[in-house]
């Protein structure tokens, strides 16, 4: 059977939102433990976007962002990408390092902190997927890239482009007081895995 992102209906999107919701909840808890602060979150937004619109939601193709990329193996295969705008990256690393001021430039310590944050957040998503579906999933070590949004997003876009012209995006907003951290989470299963995923979530027969 073939299945493309254009075939996703509201029920499928609701289920993906629930995955994002539980995943982000786990991620917020993990992050709160790490920085020893209360972290709030909003209900994630699930969007199916065309390539042209993906960079726009991050502030344009030339906006500098952090992308943290993982390979997923096991019952489903594919990739996960977690994208943070540069302000959110600074807030997160600032929290982790216990800084009062989040405006400084990112240094090597921040980069490795970002990788670790990506690790925790993506690990939370994966374990929520595992809880919901019972599928066995394993994450690779993270790879970090800080560069133009368009260039970073070309990587998931190319992967989605093998099966269609759309991208699935789960946007999560985490909050620590007034500091907003906007994280964008791309779930990129390969084509057979997408079907396995929706079947195991009970929305595809």
């Amino acid at each position: 059977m073939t299945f493309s992102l254009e075939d996703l209906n509201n029920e499928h999107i609701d289920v993906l939102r629930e995955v994002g919701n539980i995943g982000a909840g786990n991620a917020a808890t993990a992050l709160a433990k790490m920085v020893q602060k209360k972290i709030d979150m909003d209900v994630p937004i699930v969007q199916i976007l065309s390539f042209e619109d993906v960079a726009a939601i991050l502030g344009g193709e030339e906006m500098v962002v952090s992308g943290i990329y993982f390979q997923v193996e096991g019952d489903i295969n594919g990739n996960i990408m977690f994208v943070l705008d540069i302000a959110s990256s600074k807030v997160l690393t600032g929290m982790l390092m216990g800084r009062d001021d989040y405006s400084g430039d990112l240094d090597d310590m921040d980069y490795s902190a970002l990788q670790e944050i990506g690790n925790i957040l993506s690990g939370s998503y994966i374990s929520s997927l595992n809880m919901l579906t019972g599928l066995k999933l394993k994450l690779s070590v993270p790879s970090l890239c800080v560069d133009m949004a368009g260039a970073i997003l070309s990587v998931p876009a190319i992967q989605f482009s093998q099966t269609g012209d759309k991208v699935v995006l789960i946007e999560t907003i985490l909050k620590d007081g007034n500091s907003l951290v906007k994280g964008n989470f791309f779930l990129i299963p390969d084509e057979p895995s997408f079907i396995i995923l929706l079947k195991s979530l009970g929305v595809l027969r």
Partner: protein
Amino acid sequence: MQKVIKVGMADLKIVSEPDVLTTLGLGSCVGIALYDKVTKIAGLAHIMLPDSSQIKNNQNLAKFADTAINLLVSEMIQKGAGPGRLTAKISGGSQMFSFGSNGSDLMKIGYRNVVATKEILSKLRIPILSEDTGGNYGRTIEFYSENGNLLVKTIGHGVKII
């Protein structure tokens, strides 16, 4: 009035003097800039994948190196460019993320896009005047129809004209 025309992902556009073509944030994709210096007709394609015949969903011709270059050439000729006069400049094809030696084929997609682009250009006998490809960083390019210059801008890796 000089206009700047944006070329999106999996897209191609053609302009003539004095307009400028641009594509923002090229990563593993490749920007293919074709130019006829006599008529000053310039075309730019932003391709994502090397080969349309390997993919089932291949209706979007501008997405693949093979179909995009053929389409760009035929549209440029339709607009008055001379088939024997076309020259090419290419940019992009970087590897944004690395996973060591066990990286999948998809991780090398930038390299494969560049190789496919060169093969197709050589088949069509379109000489490549210059290129700025590879690496692990993004590029924004601007292609000037008045002189065929291709400006490549990066974050932390300088600006150059090729």
